[in-house]
């Protein structure tokens, strides 16, 4: 497996791959002013093959936490360890060999084909001016196959559907052969079929390749269905961390999301959330 080939003995010993230890962060317009937004100390741990979903309303600190995990920003306090290494002290190159980030897409300046896009994932393994080897091409082709997108290989990125594009972006992340896969709202703008398809793929890949997956999402039910652990954030505080059944409690979710809802247990044993319409004044919300 691509992921385990680069992992160290350290990870096998403890079996914890990702360890988020009391990380906090603060944004401020300038240093003398009070911060505009604070993420209070948050912690969780994840094993290889596990999917962690970060949930919370807008401006609760989800994306900030993801950036801190990715090592793109230095936490105010605490640290994020990936196989024992502090993510934000790694060089960009080494970091990209271990952590792949699937972001909300940014527009392309000049069009490229899907296979060119996926090959970009091999960049962290090249130095200076290098041309892709046969091995790189094989890895990229395999990545496309793993997300079921071989047929898109020769298509232009700006001429495929949102769901197809999200698969190609995921394939690029796979060709980085990471230990940790981070996704920032990957199901945004996708229809329900594409959402489920993408998450099924993610579930399968996490199991097969032993990736640790951290995904930021707004989809409560999909998160409950696919995640092993939930991190619930509210106004920069991590309110609860645990398996979906432990986190999905009606009062807690109602308080966090400010909307009446009910929580049932589905046949799979995973909780299911139903948003209740406000009964007295249906049009006021």
């Amino acid at each position, binding site marked *: 497996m691509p992921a385990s080939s680069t992992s160290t003995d350290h990870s096998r010993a403890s079996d914890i791959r990702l360890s988020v230890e009391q990380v906090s962060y603060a944004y401020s317009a300038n240093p003398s002013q009070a911060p505009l937004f604070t993420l209070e100390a948050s912690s969780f741990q994840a094993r290889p093959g596990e999917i962690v979903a970060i949930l919370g309303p807008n401006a609760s600190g989800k994306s900030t936490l993801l950036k801190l995990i*990715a090592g*793109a920003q230095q936490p105010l306090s605490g640290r994020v360890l990936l196989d024992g290494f502090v993510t934000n002290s790694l*060089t*960009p*190159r*080494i*970091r*990209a*060999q271990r*952590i*792949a*980030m699937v*972001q909300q897409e*940014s527009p*392309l*300046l*000049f*069009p*490229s084909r899907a*296979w*060119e896009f996926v*090959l*970009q*994932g091999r*960049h*962290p393994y*090249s130095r*200076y*001016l*290098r*041309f*892709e080897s046969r091995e*790189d*091409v094989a890895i*990229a*082709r395999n990545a496309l196959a793993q997300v079921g997108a071989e047929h898109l*290989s020769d298509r232009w990125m700006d001429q495929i559907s949102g769901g197809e594009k999200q698969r190609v972006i995921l394939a690029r992340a796979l060709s*980085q052969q990471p230990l940790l896969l981070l996704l920032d709202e990957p199901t945004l703008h996708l229809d329900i079929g594409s959402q489920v398809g993408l998450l099924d793929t993610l579930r399968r890949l996490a199991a097969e390749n032993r990736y640790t997956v951290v995904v930021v999402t707004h989809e409560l039910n999909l998160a409950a269905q696919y995640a092993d652990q939930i991190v619930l954030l509210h106004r920069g505080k991590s309110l609860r961390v645990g398996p979906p059944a432990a986190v999905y409690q009606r009062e807690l979710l109602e308080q966090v999301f400010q909307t009446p809802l009910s929580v049932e247990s589905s046949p799979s044993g995973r909780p299911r959330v139903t948003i209740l319409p406000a009964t007295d004044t249906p049009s006021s919300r």
Partner: protein
Amino acid sequence: MRPLTFQGVLLRCGALAVVLFIVVVIALKLGAVPVSLYGLGLDLLHVLLGKTSELSSNYDMIVIDIRLPRILLAIIVGASLAVAGTAFQALLRNPLADPYVLGVSSGSSLGAILALIVEPHLALPLAFAALVTPVGAFLGAVATIAVVYFLGRREGQIDSSMLLLSGIISASFLSAIIMFLITTLSGRGDLRGMSFWLMGDLSGALQPTLRWVLGIGFLVATCVTYTTASDLNLLLAGEKEAMHLGVDVRRVRLVVYIAASLLTGLAVSVSGAIGYVGLLVPHVMRLIFGSDHRILIPTSALGGAIAVVIADTLARTVVAPSELPVGAMTALAGAPLFIYLLRRKFA
């Protein structure tokens, strides 16, 4: 999947090099003094073998001593401007960026003029005196791109139209200062005329030391830019994306800004502010060879050389026996294309 290979790059560059060679031969042949193709070949052979004394006639001496150096100058200037343009377009994520539009060429001109004014007071040894203009031009370029970059930001992000407007406004402001300086100092013989600094001109003779500075500077800056080619490919997708794919964004940005400023500074110090080459050439190359910088940078260098040799040949032949500044020719071709690209992008 057919990824770009080194052989593929060599093959395409080879094809362009053949085109450049043909253009150079035609450029050598055209001019006020008629030359036969056979005589030209014989002369070039003599020069290559180092037997300059065996040149057949005085007319051919004109070709070798006057036309050839000018063409070589056009090649290096064109290549420098096109590579600088390619680099600026990638860094600023703006397909309309180029040294001239961003005001960097004007800043370079001003830097060179100021250096020429200061130079006599520095009492430098002769070897260093030749370096003063290119260094001044380089510093002018670095200062201008820094200013335009900061003016072109809005809420911490580079804003495409703000950037272009800042560039155009800086260019006209700097041009006004250049006009003021040239007019006040018109008595001095070593300062070139207004049209040289504002429009670009390849007709002047070059100091021999400056030739070496130009050639070596061009090679170093282009090679350095070329080593970042794959990083530039990813920077086009945005700085955040590039960082997550392992690009050391800050280092690449700094290195390429300096290299592109150096290329602009070198070109401007020997030829003034020739416009549109850095804008037009990368676009045409992108249409032909695709937007991968591993192919775009070398083909732009060759394409820029071809474009400026053609433009300069036209500049000295269309109104012969007098001459147009080469910048007038590139502007005649470049301005309409700029408008076309602008309309296509914002339509």
